[in-house]
Each structure stands twice: as C-alpha cells, then as structure tokens.
C-alpha cells in the first residue's frame, strides 16, 4: 500500500472508518466551539479543563477498564466545569489558581494510573489516545458525547455570540451570564471527554484551540469563521489520520495516530500564519 492509498482506499478498512467517523464528529463540534474559545479568550481555562479531566480518565480506566474511561471523565468534567464556572463568576479565579488546580489534578491522575498494578501501560494510551484501535461502541459513545456538545452550542449560538462580544450588553438584554458561560464550559468539557478517548488527553488542546485560532488568521467575517474552523479541522483530521495510518500500519512504526492528527492541526495553522504574514508583507 503506497502513500496515496493511505489517504484514500485505507478508509475502507473498518478500523480506519471508525477513526474517521470519530474525527468527523469531533471536528464539527470542536471547530464550532473552538471559535468561541478563541473569541472569549478561554484557551487557558480549556487547558485547565483538559488536565482536570485527566484523573477522571485515569480512575475510570483503573476501576472500569476501557469502558470506565468515559464515565470517569464525565464525572471529573462535570465537577471541574461547575467549579471553574463558579470560580470565574465570583472572581476568585486567576491564572495562578487555575495553574495550581490543573497541575494538582494531573499529578493525581498520573499517580492513580501508575500505582495500579498491571495498568501502568495504560498511561500512554490515556495521554495519546488510541485512535486506530477504538471499538465500535467507543466510537459510537464518543460521537454521541461530541454531538451533545454540538447541540448545546447550536441551541445557544446567538447568546454565545452576544456574550462573547459584549457580556454586559448580553446581561442587560436578559441573558443570564452564569447560564451562558456554564453551557459553553459544559460543551468544552464534553468535547474534551470525547476527544481524550480518541486523540488522548495531552493532544486534545490541538483539536479545540487550533481551528478557532486558524480561522481568525484567515477571515474577519463572523459566519466564515465557523466554516473555516470546521473545514480546517476536517482537513487536518483527514491528513493526520492518513499519515498516522501510513507510519504505523504501512511503515510498521508504532506511533499513536492522535499525535499525527495533532501535528496536522499545527501544520495547517503554520501554513495559515505564513500566508497571512506574507500577504501583509506584500500589502505593506
């Protein structure tokens, strides 16, 4: 099988089809939500949430095996989301407290996994995902979780835009601030949970943050932002998955496909950045 086949016919293989399905749903959800993360400047909070979810992933994995990962992650995500939303609304949060909480949570997760006999090998899987070996039921559950996140954001789309642009005006118009923020944070947490299983907890940030940041480089039109973000996420997923397949299945080098996917996101961002800088240079 040559490189070209990795980008095309390889997707006829069942495990590649499952991986693609997972990434398509993730790309749509993460693309839309990523634009709001960028507009609201929530990158650091998102980072905090991914780390806070980690002990949940770890505990779920240790006590429930592969099937327990999602439940553990959902519980941790729910707790972390509520705590972070309330903290930010009562103005007690700061970058320092978020940083302390997130490193603490991450350490707890690493200790849980490492201290469990026979489960230590699972650490790599939790950090980098297992995109090419997801089962049918995992793919389905991941898709459902990401779809719920998508529905939450689509249903509150206008108030999210209003709030991102002008939180005070949005509150004066009668939209409750806490509920608007809570819905977006829950959606972010759900995408983290879904994506952690597929691309791994460490690489989730690429999927959530890069598409929104990339779209800001490409366009200044509100509608186009969402189209570009979702489109670039889909493109990066396809490229990354094909490269991962080529390296690990065809090449025989055991590389998690989550890493090639994350790298593809960064690659597309770099191209967008270079094009923008070059165009600015020409216009100047």
């Amino acid at each position: 099988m040559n490189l070209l086949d990795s980008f095309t016919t390889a997707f006829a293989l069942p495990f590649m089809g499952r991986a693609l399905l997972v990434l398509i749903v993730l790309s749509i959800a993460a693309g839309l939500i990523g634009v709001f993360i960028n507009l609201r400047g929530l990158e650091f909070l998102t980072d905090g949430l991914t780390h806070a979810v980690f002990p949940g992933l770890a505990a779920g994995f240790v006590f429930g095996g592969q099937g327990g990962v999602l439940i553990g992650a959902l519980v941790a995500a729910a707790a972390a989301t509520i705590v972070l939303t309330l903290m930010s609304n009562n103005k007690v949060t700061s970058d320092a407290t978020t940083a302390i909480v997130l490193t603490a949570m991450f350490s707890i997760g690493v200790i849980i996994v490492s201290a469990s006999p026979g489960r230590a090998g699972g650490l790599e899987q939790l950090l980098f995902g297992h995109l090419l070996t997801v089962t049918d039921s995992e793919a389905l559950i991941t898709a459902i979780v990401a779809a719920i996140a998508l529905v939450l954001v689509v249903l509150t789309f206008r108030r999210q835009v209003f709030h991102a642009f002008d939180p005070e005006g949005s509150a004066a118009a009668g939209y409750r601030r806490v509920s608007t923020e809570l819905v977006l944070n829950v959606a972010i947490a759900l995408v983290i949970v879904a994506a952690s299983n597929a691309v791994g907890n460490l690489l989730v940030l690429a999927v959530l943050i890069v598409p929104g940041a990339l779209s800001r480089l490409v366009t200044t039109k509100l509608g186009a932002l969402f189209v570009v973000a979702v489109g670039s996420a889909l493109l990066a997923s396809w490229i990354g998955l094909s490269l991962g397949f080529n390296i690990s299945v065809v090449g025989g080098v055991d590389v998690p496909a989550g890493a090639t996917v994350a790298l593809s996101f960064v690659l597309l961002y770099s191209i967008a950045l270079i094009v923008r800088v070059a165009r600015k240079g020409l216009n100047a």
Partner: protein
Amino acid sequence: MSPRTRPIPIITDDALTITGGSFSYGDTPALTDVTISVKPGEAMALIGPNGSGKSTLLKGVLGLIPLVEGSMGLGTTAGIGYLPQTEHIDPEFPVTLKQVVMMGRYRKLGLFRFPGSADRAAVREAIASVGLGNVANKRFGSLSGGQQQRGFLARALAAQPSLLLLDEPFNGLDQPNRDALMQTLRQLKAAGVAIIVTTHDLELAREVCDTVLFVNGRQIAFGPKDEVLTLANLQEVFHEFQVEIDEHTVVVPGHEGH
C-alpha cells in the same frame, strides 16, 4: 403591516413607576427613597455627581441590581432598551455594525427562529435612525468612538423598546454626533417611547427632557424640569459644580465648605 412602520407602544399606563424604591449591592444601599413616574413619550433627565446612584437606578430598572425596598412597575411588556456608559469591546471582534444591531433582536427571535424580513427591517431602520446607514457593513471595531456609541443605541432601538435607558450618552460626542443623538431622542419621544437619560449636561436636560430627577445616594428632587431645575437643588446635589449654560461656564458653589 408594512415593514417600515414601527409598532406604536400602547399608551395606557406609565412606562415606569417606582414608589419608595431602594436599590442595593450586597449590604450597602446604593440609592434610596426613589419615587418617580415616567410616561410614554416622556424623557426624564437623571442628574447627580459621580457615584451618586445614577447607573444604579438604570441597572435596578433592568433587574441587574435588586430592589430591596418599595415597589417598581413597568407599564408595557414591549421591553427595555439599554445603552451602557462604557462598553469594553475587543476592537478586533469579527462582527459588522449590522450584526451588532441584530443582537438587539435576539431575545425576540428566541431559540429556533431565524431573522426574518421584519427583523431585518427593524435593524435597517434602527441603523438609519442613528445616521449610520453608510457604514452598516463595516466591522464594528473599525468605527469611531462616537459611531460605536450610536451603533449601540441602534442595537437598543432594534428591539423596539417602550422604555429606553441611556447612561451618559453624550459623553465624548462631538457636535455632529451630539446633534444626531438629540434628533433621534426627539423622534423616539414622538413615537411614544419613554426615555431615561443620565447626564451632566443641564442644557440637554432643558432641551429634550420633560422631567428631572436629582440624586445623590438618595432622591433629592423629582418633577417637571421647570420646577426642579433650580439653583437650590443644584447646590444640594453638587458641592461645587461647573455648569455650561448659554455658552458660559458658571461655577455653582455648594452649601458645604463655603
């Protein structure tokens, strides 16, 4: 109904009545003893020094600050428009003026409806009424401060409110923007909209307002402008105050420390 006609609010009752009202943040009362009424088509000037509770009253009417004593009644259900004093917006935020003004329609649209011709007409009309028709498709952050201010007013108007709250709308406006805003306020009054406007500008109060409310932590005076806009009331509200009136700057000495 043709899309260009603005529905006239039902004139049956006062747009706003407050009786013995007190508003407070936490334990500290920010404004007390407020008893006022504003009728449809009437404008009330809200005057007082900084920190006297002007913004508190506006936020209290919006329900953002709780009424802890007394009662408050809103006349119609057509909604309240609000123009905050300062808007901190990201100048790079990717929205056009038209999209910002459409935000004024969001509550009416609810969850599932897409903007229809009536919504687009209301947005177009609101933008035209503040004189920004030529920049409707420009990015909001690229507009001047005065244009942004008028843009936010257009957003408040797009909701076709029966009560409009304006917090220091004339601050930092140049003469053309100021004249345009005065004109808009007169048109709104003629259409039956009740207006509350906080200001330092007594000339504005005389020109477009019908009633005046003086506050300084509590209500000092309320009534028709001719009865309330007196030197005695000004001295009670401001310890020392520079008034620009008829192109002269007059320093009004307060009763304390003199």
